[in-house]
């Protein structure tokens, strides 16, 4: 969930040296080992954090009693099947240009994916920012340009900005197919589940850069779990894990911020304002999990003229996933990707069966890309 601003910040800090320093990492891992006396299950929410853990083998540095499970914070993975089906249907509409973030293109819908629709002639384009889609709409007044606006609180401000700009300019050929999800209600749903085994959470640093971390206070209060806002580099994650272990071992529960170089308590107020101007909170379907109350965003009625769902009567499209799909359990941290019988055999990145194998932030893809040798070597 990185932005241009974070990139510039990275460059100034030479982040990869400081925050990937092996000596610091090993010292943190040692301290975690010394402080851990009991088994704890920790969940990192964000797929970017999962990716770092797998890429650097952070879990290999931890004591056996610490188990990391991977959360639902992969925006591509939790986008519901029906949103993908709607996007595919929209792309096939005459005169429509569908613009999307790149890794949505391979996510399987009910019967196709956007890559295949594109190969069959639909005008599907990849953009890094929704504002590119606004540009395309401006330059092609004869096309109806739809942006597939998915993601967590990190992408919401930019998507809101695109809608706001289109409305201000009277750009009637630009609309958004919105499927936005929010982190705190998802954590609440996980904690409220009778199956929950997570003792503490690493909250997603980039989401909190936008939203701050005040909204996590009520989770700590209601469920008594420690939450630490964490960054995305190895040192960040190890430090966040240490902070969680210290709270757990001392029977404390509060919200702490490890990612201080990017996150403050109130977050980016200007970004929150544009989100509130354009979006309102709604119930939202999560792929593999189901509907979570008040866990998503939809366009406010003032923006109906830019709402693809209404404009193209997309509400008629619904799709329910097979309830038994394994990815649901992976996304809730109940199972590890390698527990799936299809992992690495029937289900691979080139032939993904579920979304977590598609996105590079998906837990299955991270395991496949970096760890399938673990199973081969240990014979697990």
């Amino acid at each position, binding site marked *: 969930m990185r932005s241009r601003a974070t*990139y510039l910040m990275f460059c100034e800090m030479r982040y990869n040296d400081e925050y990937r320093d092996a000596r610091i990492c090993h010292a943190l891992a040692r301290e975690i080992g010394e402080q851990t006396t009991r088994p704890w299950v920790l969940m990192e929410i964000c797929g970017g954090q999962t990716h770092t853990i797998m890429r650097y083998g952070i879990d290999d540095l931890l004591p056996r009693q610490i188990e990391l499970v991977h959360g639902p914070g992969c925006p591509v993975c939790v986008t519901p099947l029906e949103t993908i089906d709607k996007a595919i249907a929209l792309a096939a509409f005459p005169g429509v240009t569908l613009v999307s973030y790149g890794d949505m293109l391979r996510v399987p819908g009910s019967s196709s994916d956007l890559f295949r629709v594109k190969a069959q002639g639909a005008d599907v384009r990849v953009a890094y920012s929704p504002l590119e889609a606004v540009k395309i709409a401006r330059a092609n007044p004869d096309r109806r340009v739809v942006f597939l606006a998915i993601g967590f609180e990190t992408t919401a401000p930019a998507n809101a900005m695109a809608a706001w700009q289109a409305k201000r300019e009277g750009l009637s050929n630009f609309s958004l197919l919105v499927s936005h999800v929010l982190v705190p209600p998802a954590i609440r749903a996980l904690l409220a589940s009778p199956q929950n085994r997570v003792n503490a959470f690493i909250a997603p640093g980039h989401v909190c850069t936008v939203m701050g971390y005040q909204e996590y206070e009520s989770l700590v209060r209601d469920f008594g779990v420690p939450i630490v806002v964490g960054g995305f580099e190895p040192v960040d994650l190890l430090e966040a894990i240490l902070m969680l272990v210290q709270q757990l071992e001392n029977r404390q529960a509060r919200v702490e911020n490890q990612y201080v170089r990017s996150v403050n308590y109130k977050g980016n107020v200007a970004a929150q304002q544009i989100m509130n101007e354009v979006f309102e909170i709604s119930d939202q379907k999560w792929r593999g999990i189901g509907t979570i109350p008040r866990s998503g965003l939809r366009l406010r009625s003032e923006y109906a003229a830019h709402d693809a769902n209404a404009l193209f009567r997309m509400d008629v499209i619904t799709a329910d996933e097979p309830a038994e799909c394994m990815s649901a359990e992976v996304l809730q941290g109940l199972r590890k990707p390698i527990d799936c019988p299809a992992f690495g055999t029937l289900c691979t990145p080139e032939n993904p*069966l579920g979304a977590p194998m598609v996105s590079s932030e998906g837990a299955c893809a991270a395991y496949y890309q970096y760890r399938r040798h673990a199973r081969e070597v240990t014979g697990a």
Partner: protein
Amino acid sequence: MAGITCPTPLPAKDTILLGHGSGGKLSADLVREVFLPAFKNSALAELNDQALVNIAGTRLAFSTDSFVVKPLFFPGGDIGSLAVHGTINDLAMGGATPLFLSAAFIIEEGLSIEVLRRVVTSMQRAARIAGVQIVTGDTKVVEKGSGDGLFINTSGIGLVPEDVRLSANQARPGDKVILSGFIGDHGIAILAQRKGLEFETTIESDSAALHSLVTGMLNVTNEIRCMRDPTRGGLSSALNEIAAQSQVGIELREDAIPVREEVRGACEMLGLDPMYVANEGKLIAIVAPRVADAVVSAMRRNTLGRDARIIGSVNQDRRGLVTMRTGLGTTRIVDMLAGDQLPRIC
């Protein structure tokens, strides 16, 4: 765990997708399932970047490559210089001295002749510097909308010295892996130029003809097993091909692989891994351990190999698998790219 099923898999093999051109697994599938069965012969079966053929006792390397890069002009080169360098490098990776090239142009109706002239001038310049001649060619024009401005195909032939035998199936346990310099420059230079990527960058493509570097290496030893230029699919795909064809494991050391700070930053921002980003002026060589240092020294005497270094070694533990020793001392897999490396959303 009976009863757990996933959503129905989609048939992956009915349509050509962009990923089939990415140099990763889908490309390899296409070669294995469509082209190899149709064209079956011993020169092709070697699956190297060039075919080695023998004509009346003369060993010739023969190769072809098509160039569809967008934009046509980018920092550090253009489609013309790239088309010359690309085929020269495919020949050079077989140890050949490149001699003659062909050039075929597929031009979209409406292209400015001035643009074509600039491209051709650049090709001639690249060929002259490399000491090869473009001796035959072809031109086709397609209707507006049927092409993307300009596509170029080049083919080339070169002479292979009698004692040179380089092939991707010759890596042996204990061998060292040498990389000639910084990775990712070309791919990031192109991405940065493309529409929509408005960040400041000074990154230039590394596009260059590598045969002089190769000659210098071959002068040192005849114990170079194989060479590859890690173009499409990047370092990772090239090494995975060698690991698969030689049935060996390859372990890299992450801290030994040189990536420029700007390239690393751009990759972080775009959600790309430099290991998968294209290079057009780099090579990897698998060499016998006892000559590795000498080969690196020879490479460093050439500006194209100034930053050459050993980045890993060949083992017999994990056959067909490329692994990476991370800076933290843990190990992970360096997989071949499944499809296109997609820009991540966050």
